[in-house]
């Protein structure tokens, strides 16, 4: 039996990141302010993590407020109308509703209604997961422009006495517009997961345990040394593979923008990758802390803002974290 001929989306050859937007928590929380409950000190925290201050949202500053601010900047910088956005991807682990998604509300608030919108949960790898999906949506012709947001208000899910991760965490949102391009602007993504370490970075309890009175409010925790080991020596392999599939060498990079987990991880990655001095290394963690899904776009935005790198250069961006999940790609800086 024959059937009527179907249309399919017309594919597009290349995609790129058009622009970035950034919003950080308004408060600058110093090490001295949080050191007491973990019996620590400014010196210890700086030495172990590189953090001097972390950005945290004020009580009246929501995850959505930061996501909207970052998105509006990205949309304006891209020079497009919000109505041209064909999909919205919001990566977050701190949206306080199981449903509906954060993405649908964000889409409404930035004027992109009725674009398809959905959240993804890939923690600190989430923004790079989002860029991979946006790249695929654009090149497959499904959407012309995609808004990708990584945003977190992690301060809602911390425990002040936790020495494993809470003191690292900050709040913020980073946004990017991905769209069609005349030349390649996003390399093939190297991504994956390792659920055998599912509990290495996780919540202290499930919401069901909390409901049943069997646990206090769930907060983040991690097995720091296991994660450190994985984040350096496994991610070095992922970073090298990302360069290889992109068809470039480390010396071709203008910047390395890793997830801002810990300065010691970043420094060790730089050492293991034997990056030349000419490559700018994002160290936004020093002033912003670890903002999970927001950290890569915030750090890249900061490098561009400081003039440490120029538009048109190549950046290796790599996200890694809870899941465990990871994603890396080389992008042309917007």
């Amino acid at each position: 039996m024959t059937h009527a001929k179907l249309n399919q989306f017309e594919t597009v050859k290349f995609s790129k990141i058009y622009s970035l937007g950034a919003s950080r928590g308004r408060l600058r929380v110093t090490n001295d302010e949080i050191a007491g409950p973990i019996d620590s000190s400014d010196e210890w925290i700086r030495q172990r993590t590189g953090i001097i201050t972390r950005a945290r949202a004020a009580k009246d500053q929501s995850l959505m407020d930061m996501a909207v601010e970052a998105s509006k900047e990205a949309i304006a910088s891209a020079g497009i109308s919000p109505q041209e956005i064909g999909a919205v991807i919001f990566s977050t682990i701190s949206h306080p509703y199981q449903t509906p998604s954060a993405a649908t509300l964000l889409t409404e608030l930035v004027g992109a209604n009725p674009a398809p919108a959905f959240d993804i949960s890939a923690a600190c790898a989430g923004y790079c997961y989002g860029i991979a999906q946006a790249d695929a949506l654009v090149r497959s012709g499904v959407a012309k422009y995609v808004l990708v947001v990584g945003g977190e208000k992690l301060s809602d899910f911390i425990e002040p006495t936790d020495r494993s991760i809470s003191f690292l965490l900050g709040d913020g949102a980073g946004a990017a517009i991905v769209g069609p391009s005349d030349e390649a602007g996003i390399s093939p993504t190297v991504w994956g997961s390792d659920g055998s370490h599912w509990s290495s970075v996780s919540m202290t309890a499930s919401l069901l345990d909390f409901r049943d009175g069997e646990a206090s409010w769930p907060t983040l925790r991690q097995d720091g040394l296991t994660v450190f080991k994985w984040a350096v020596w496994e991610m070095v392999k992922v970073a090298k593979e990302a360069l290889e599939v992109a068809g470039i060498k480390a010396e071709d990079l203008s910047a390395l923008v890793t997830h801002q987990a810990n300065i010691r991880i970043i420094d060790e990655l730089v050492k293991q990758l034997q990056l030349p001095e000419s490559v700018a290394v994002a160290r936004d963690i020093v002033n912003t802390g670890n903002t999970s899904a927001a950290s890569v776009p915030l750090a890249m935005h900061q490098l561009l803002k400081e003039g440490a790198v120029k538009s048109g250069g190549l950046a290796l961006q790599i996200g890694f974290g809870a899941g465990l999940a990871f994603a890396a790609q080389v992008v042309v800086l917007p």
Partner: protein
Amino acid sequence: MALSHDEVLAGLAEIVNEETGIDTDSVKLEKSFTNDLDIDSISMMTIVVNAEEKFSVKIPDEEVKNLLTVGDAVNFITSAQG
């Protein structure tokens, strides 16, 4: 070929020196990584990974907390070499 106890100590001292700058002569069997050599947990993990590579052994994460002294690490690596 398996390295001797002394050869493992010398190799480990080089790894510690590279990570922390501590003089190789100070890396003695009885020294505690944390109390005597002032090596923090993150540096310790870096030393562990480099030792795994250098001596072709596997040091499980849960074993690292038992390696309190340089001697503990040398003994573990020597026996793990088979």
